């Protein structure tokens, strides 16, 4: 069976029966079911978990020859892991990390500070942007966290409301993606970065 959507165009009615019909439509209690913030949070957690899982799935696999090196590499990695845990414990409970983003020559008047917080569902980034021109119609800005080989989007914004604090998010951790950039994108230009970087910063700088 083909399911068809009823035609949603048509003139409004003029009839005393209209009020009663409208009353009938609005009498359904389900119409008034509240939007649940917990559901929104659960959706975002689900997505963060899947993003994280997908990133793990794309990590390189090792050949038999490579495995010879895995034990020493694993030992070194273990040391780094312990150091990482120690650092994490040292900084546990501290304020979010703040990173200054420098303007590129494409937006010399712009500046930004990124406040970065690691959460259970990924990175929460609040970008305080100043002096960045509103994106022209048909364009928008996009935030990214990157490493030397790839990047993950953390959200989009347009600055048409003036300087602002922009809340962004990514389901990755800051250690793997220590570079933050903002690019100017064209609508309909696809999901990849345009490469037109207007702001850039690094967590470990």
């Amino acid at each position, binding site marked *: 069976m083909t*399911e068809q*959507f*009823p*035609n*949603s*165009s*048509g*003139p*409004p*009615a*003029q*009839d*005393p*029966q*209209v*009020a*009663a*019909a*409208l*009353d009938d*439509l*609005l*009498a*359904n*209690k*389900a*119409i*008034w*079911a*509240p*939007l*649940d913030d*917990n*559901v*929104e949070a*659960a*959706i*975002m957690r*689900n*997505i*963060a978990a*899947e*993003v994280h899982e997908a990133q793990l799935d794309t990590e390189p696999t090792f050949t038999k020859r490579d495995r010879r090196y895995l034990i020493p590499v694993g030992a070194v990695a273990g040391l780094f892991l312990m150091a990482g845990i120690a650092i994490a414990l040292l900084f546990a409970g501290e304020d979010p990390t703040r990173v200054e983003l420098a303007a590129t020559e494409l937006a010399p008047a712009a500046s930004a500070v990124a406040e970065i917080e690691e959460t259970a569902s990924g990175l929460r980034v609040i970008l305080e942007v100043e002096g960045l021109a509103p994106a022209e119609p048909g364009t*928008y800005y996009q935030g990214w966290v990157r490493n030397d080989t790839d990047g993950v*989007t*953390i*959200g*989009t914004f*347009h600055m048409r409301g003036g300087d602002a604090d922009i*809340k*962004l*998010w*990514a*389901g990755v951790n800051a250690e793997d993606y220590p570079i933050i950039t903002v690019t100017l994108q064209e*609508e*309909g230009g*696809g*999901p990849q970065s345009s490469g037109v970087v207007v702001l850039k910063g690094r967590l470990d700088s």
Partner: protein
Amino acid sequence: MDQLLDRFRAGDPEAVRDVYQRYGGAVTTVARSIVGDPELAAEVVQQTFTKAWRAASSFDRNRDLAPWLYSIARRTAIDALRAESRPTRGGHGPEVDQPVTTLSFERTWEIFEVRQAVDDLPIEERVVVQLSHFGGLTHPEIAERLNIALGTVKSRSHRAHRRLAAALAHLLPANQDGLPDVLGGDPSS
């Protein structure tokens, strides 16, 4: 909206949040209409938006997002209802899908549209309509509850009903001409 669709199709999680803010109410209403139970409905809404995010890249941006989301929500709700209806739930026998009866595709789409029209109202008008239709309050009672003048309640109600009648005209009795007088007056005034 175009930018939101681009972000959504790109898999941007923040775009899913925006889509939830825009359509979450309507999806919740469809879920509640089909499964009834609020907790199961919440699970359906959660699954709907997660599935939508997974399938976002296949969404045709030249089409309307609402019917696409609605179709996912309805299918997810019916699946949830079917899973809840399995007679061997918790037992050791084989699980057999049970046929489930629910509101028609057209009826739940109508409910989706009504909720969307309500959500599109300016907040001050939506509150008045909600208190009247869901809360069962008269205009004077709404005025007292909101601490605003009775005339303000009436004018907000008037505007809200005109907007709803226009948005939902295709669901209302055929008109002769012009906008309907759907106010009907306040029975208590």
